[in-house]
């Protein structure tokens, strides 16, 4: 690598690291707040999977759209959603992204092209494709990304969506974030054939397989596939195996896997790995520490904002259902 290339790599990697540390800090604070009883519903944490969200979204513009999953905090943060509003949403407060109507599983921020987390596995796939189809119809230069997990590849909309994006040659990037588990079951036990990427390839969608815990690798592969989308070459598929260090939900103590297995995966923590890679590129030793303290300050402020935000007025339950035939 030339000096200039190394310097660019360092700038990119630092941005990725900062995003990943912010996602981790957000979710750790959310977990703690849940423990204190401040988050009424459950949480699906993406701790250990941050490199996928950060790596893919680092290649997106604000006007590009993403559709996310029930494990979507990281995607939202990486796309630019405001963490105060997100935390307030988890708390169910008026200052939340959805004013307390959605909670963790429905965080959305249309102002940054985040078309919503989704409580239905695979539910975001068609939405992302539709956003791409609208972009074409309107003559807008946008691409669309759908994030989904390994569990989604056994649902019909996955197949329908791949085929649809292919035949209409839409600018859609499919990102399969394979954390090894579909809820409480190893996806390998429930998935036949050559796996997610193989299915995409069978339908004629070019795919790349990367280490989902390597933020640089995710970024590079996403950049390649998104570049094809932007030049009208059609959809791409990114397969990124990673590992879910926490449970399916916050209540899941993961009795179905050995602690040794989790410990082994902790050795592959994407944040530690990126920090190491950046040190090798010459990142100042204080760099990661500084990101860490900034992220903690940001998330402390987010929690304080959420806790100080009022509960919604009960009558707000009747608002925003529909214009015609709205509840009285």
């Amino acid at each position: 690598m030339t000096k200039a290339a190394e310097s660019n790599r360092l700038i990119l990697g630092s941005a990725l690291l900062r995003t990943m540390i912010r996602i981790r800090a957000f979710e750790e604070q959310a977990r703690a707040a849940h423990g204190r009883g401040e988050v009424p519903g459950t949480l699906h944490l993406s701790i250990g999977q941050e490199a996928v969200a950060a790596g893919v979204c680092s290649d997106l513009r604000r006007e590009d759209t993403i559709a996310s999953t029930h494990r979507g905090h990281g995607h939202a943060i990486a796309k630019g959603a405001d963490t105060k509003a997100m935390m307030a949403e988890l708390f169910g407060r008026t200052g939340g992204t959805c004013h307390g109507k959605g909670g963790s599983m429905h965080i959305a921020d249309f102002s940054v092209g985040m078309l919503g987390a989704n409580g239905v596995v695979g539910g975001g796939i068609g939405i992302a494709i539709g956003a791409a189809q609208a972009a074409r119809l309107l003559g807008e230069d946008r691409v669309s990304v759908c994030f989904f997990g390994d569990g989604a590849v056994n649902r019909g909309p996955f197949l329908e969506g791949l085929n649809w994006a292919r035949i209409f040659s839409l600018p859609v990037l499919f990102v399969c974030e394979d954390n090894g588990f579909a809820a409480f079951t190893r996806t390998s036990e429930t998935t036949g054939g050559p796996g997610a990427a193989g299915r995409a390839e069978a339908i004629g969608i070019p795919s790349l397989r990367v280490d989902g815990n390597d933020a640089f690798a995710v970024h590079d592969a996403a950049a390649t596939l998104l570049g094809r989308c932007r030049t009208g070459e059609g959809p791409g598929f990114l397969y990124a195996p990673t590992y879910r260090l926490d449970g399916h939900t916050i209540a899941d103590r993961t009795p179905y896997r050995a602690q040794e297995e989790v410990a082994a995966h902790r050795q592959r923590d994407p944040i530690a790995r990126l920090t190491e890679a950046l040190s090798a590129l010459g990142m100042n030793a204080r760099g990661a520490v500084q990101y860490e303290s900034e992220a903690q300050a940001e998330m402390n402020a987010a929690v304080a904002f959420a806790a100080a935000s009022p509960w919604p007025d009960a009558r707000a339950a009747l608002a925003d259902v529909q214009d015609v035939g709205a509840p009285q």
Partner: protein
Amino acid sequence: MSELTVMEATRQGLLEEMRRDARVWCLGEDLARGGVFGQYAGLAEEFGGERVVSTPISEAMIMNVGLGAALSGTRPVVEMRIADFTLCAMDELVNQVAKVRYMFGGQARAPMVIRMPHGVARYSAAQHSQSLEAWLVHIPGLVVLAPGTAADCKGMMKAAIRCDDPVVFLEPRALWPTKGEVPEGEFVTPLGAARIARKGSDVTLVTWSMTVPSALAAAEAASGEGISVEVIDLRSLWPWDRTAVLASVERTRRLVIAHEAVKVSGFGAEIAAIVAEELGDLLLSRITRVGAPRIPVPYAPPLESEYKINADKILTALRRTTQARASSRD
């Protein structure tokens, strides 16, 4: 006025809106070939393949792609081919389309029309004949329309496309070839307003969609027997025109509801309940519902006619309800 078939009137409504607003487009199976029944004839030729999109048989994707596009600045018309196939996209309709605005705290609108030809037609049996309006009315977030005349099919298609809510447009498939008067020029039919299809004073008959002609035929036959029937074509099931129904029943003090759907938990039950709650003490006879038995739609004509309501079955209900006139309650 011009005389148009129900199908042609509906097609004209869509055509006019597509000419008026470049954000309107349609997607569904076989649309570039005019649609499976010809409802889209000529549209692909005028608007091209990007606005009249022939899709794979992928109902879930048709619905959710429509949603994603509705969230992104366009106004899609989603074709389900027939109502029964909507069940392959029910997650997308109920969990996504109907809820995005609410669960995202009002950030989003899903201005889309979901077309569903419904009901018994052409001996199509159990999986191509259902009337599922009660399921759909039950879902918060959806507007549900069920017009039964050519003029309303045109005017309500136009209103549905202009509406910012997701609108289910139930089409009276059996009535497609029938003709009706349609006003010339631009008109949009208001959503949520019933139409008094026939004035009367002895009994109110509430109906909608494909049952409107049978209801009118029954009312005509009843008038020969001295029974004056007021026929209300609801047209819109959510919202439904409570004001018009209650005002009519307040005068007639009798109510019959007729719909092709299975009677058990059909939408007629909701109307009966509201009228009973609001006007129960005023009624001269018990509310009567006419609907299908709780069976799948059968194929053979004699079996199908056991399922399907008709003017005779409605007339029987009208007679029974009005015979109570002589009862002790009068």
